[in-house]
């Protein structure tokens, strides 16, 4: 059994290790390691298309994750005060946001936005005072909106679970001691849910940063890093893609590890009844 489990771990990590290894290959080959070199990293970092895609991805991931963290936390706090019917509606919509395949989310957002823009753009042009009315179109905004949908559901789910595990008694004690609801929130509730908010933020960031399929539909003429990587893979496998892939892997590894530490902190505290 141990042997089997070891094999599965190897299966999980060996392919990744191989990608990383060949990103340091001096030659162009994908199968023959001809010497150690970091030239492909230099090449990747000197590629302006790649850097633009990376900047776009970082900006989109950050914005959608921040919005999701704020609105998701607010929703998690607000939902426990809703009637059971209201809560069921929100639960259902959040579940739908998670379960509906990304490809469908992408399509639905695409068709809806294109329709809305085809209606709004002429209307905007007719009331615009200047010569050049702004043209609304797909781009950063639509990717942030579509990524934010999943992220919002993710953050709400995580923070809601944390709130559910909080003792009511400590909140009641605080109000018995004449703390205003806001003070109770700031001094009692917020510090306790903050790690899960942060974890939610990091997971949302990672999701957006790694997502290909949703962005593929709604990106318009903009390029995100996964879209760039996908397009390069279709042109052929080169060590430069390995170098980019390695950097992407390291970035998301760091984020997920921090998120896990934050979440673990939560579980140990709950277990010790703190």
């Amino acid at each position, binding site marked *: 059994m141990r042997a089997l489990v070891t094999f599965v771990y190897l299966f999980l990590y060996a392919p990744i290790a191989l*990608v990383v290894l060949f990103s340091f290959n001096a030659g162009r080959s994908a199968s023959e390691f001809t010497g150690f070199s970091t030239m492909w990293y230099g090449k990747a970092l000197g590629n302006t298309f790649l850097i633009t895609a990376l900047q776009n991805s970082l900006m989109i991931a950050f914005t959608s994750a921040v919005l999701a963290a704020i609105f998701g936390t607010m929703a998690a706090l607000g939902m426990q005060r809703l009637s059971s019917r209201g809560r069921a509606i929100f639960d259902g919509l959040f579940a739908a946001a998670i379960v509906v395949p990304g490809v*469908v989310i992408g399509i639905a957002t695409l068709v809806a936005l294109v329709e809305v823009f085809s209606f709004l753009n002429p209307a905007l042009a007719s009331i615009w005072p200047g010569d050049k009315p702004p043209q609304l179109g797909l781009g950063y905004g639509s990717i942030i909106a579509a990524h934010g949908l999943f992220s*919002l559901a993710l953050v709400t789910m995580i923070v809601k679970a944390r709130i559910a595990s909080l003792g009511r008694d400590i909140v009641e004690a605080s109000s018995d001691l004449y703390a205003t609801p806001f003070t109770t929130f700031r001094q009692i509730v917020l510090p306790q849910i903050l790690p899960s908010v942060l974890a939610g933020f990091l997971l949302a960031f990672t999701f957006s940063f790694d997502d290909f399929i949703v962005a593929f539909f709604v990106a318009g003429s903009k390029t995100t890093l996964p879209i760039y990587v996908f397009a390069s893979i279709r042109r052929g496998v080169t060590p430069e893609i390995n170098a980019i892939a390695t950097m992407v892997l390291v970035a998301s*590894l760091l984020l997920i590890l921090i998120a896990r530490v934050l979440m673990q902190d939560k579980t140990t505290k709950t277990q010790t009844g703190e």
Partner: protein
Amino acid sequence: MPLAPDRKRQLTTAALVAPAGLWLFVFLVLPFMAMVVFAFGERAPEGGYQAAFTFAQFANLPSRAAAFWNTLMIAPIGAFLCLIVAYPVAYYLAIKSNPKYRLVLVSLVVVPFWTSLLVRTYAWMYILGSRGIPNLLGMIGIEDVRLLNTPGAVLLGIVYGYLPLMIMPIYVSLEKLDRRLLEASADLGAKPVSTFFGVTLPLSLPGVMTGVALVTILLLGEYLIPQLLGGGKVFFIGNALVDLFLQSRNWPFGSAIAVTLVVVVVIVLSVAMRIAWKVSGSRQVDLV
């Protein structure tokens, strides 16, 4: 006049849920409704959408039967293969592993799931591609082996990509299992095999169900794995959708397929949940 406390509380609640509610409405409910409207429309001559009310798009669904067939065959098989590999790992982690290292071992399983699926699938293009394993086999005299762009490659990619998602719920259900039941079973003279089939396996079924349902549902909408490892020969509904929207620009037909996909997902999900409830009341999963 100051607000009554009740009214103030209601306003705070509304303010808290309003942004999320608005987001869900504008970017989930409305787009979904737009998609349904499109599905009953017609393709404009230049591509895109033209208003109409017709069932023609749905009547045309059989022309993409292959995509549906592949998806509905390969997704459950992939989920089942995942289960076969995942169960022993989850069992080992929850019951046999040294508690000191358990957390690290579990983390090592979860972490790949949150790294780019694109990159992880790329790794297999690399390994299965002509310069990978076939090249090595060629060196020892086995020529002309094709691994990439086969159903096997797609299944391998699926197991690789979704294994963590299968291990986690099973691990959680096994970890919650009361060890005293296992001892009691052994004390009453049951062999380890009968303890496993009589106690452990039935009690871990909720986790198994959750894992199979999660993986199957996510696979129904999969695009990258069949695209990169199936090379256009093994295509899923997701691939048909990308083609219809971004290449041939037949939006109404694409919408009809997308709506059908959602219906399939809902059916699979409700069947899975019905079975899961029968097995046990719990449907909590810890994905992180």
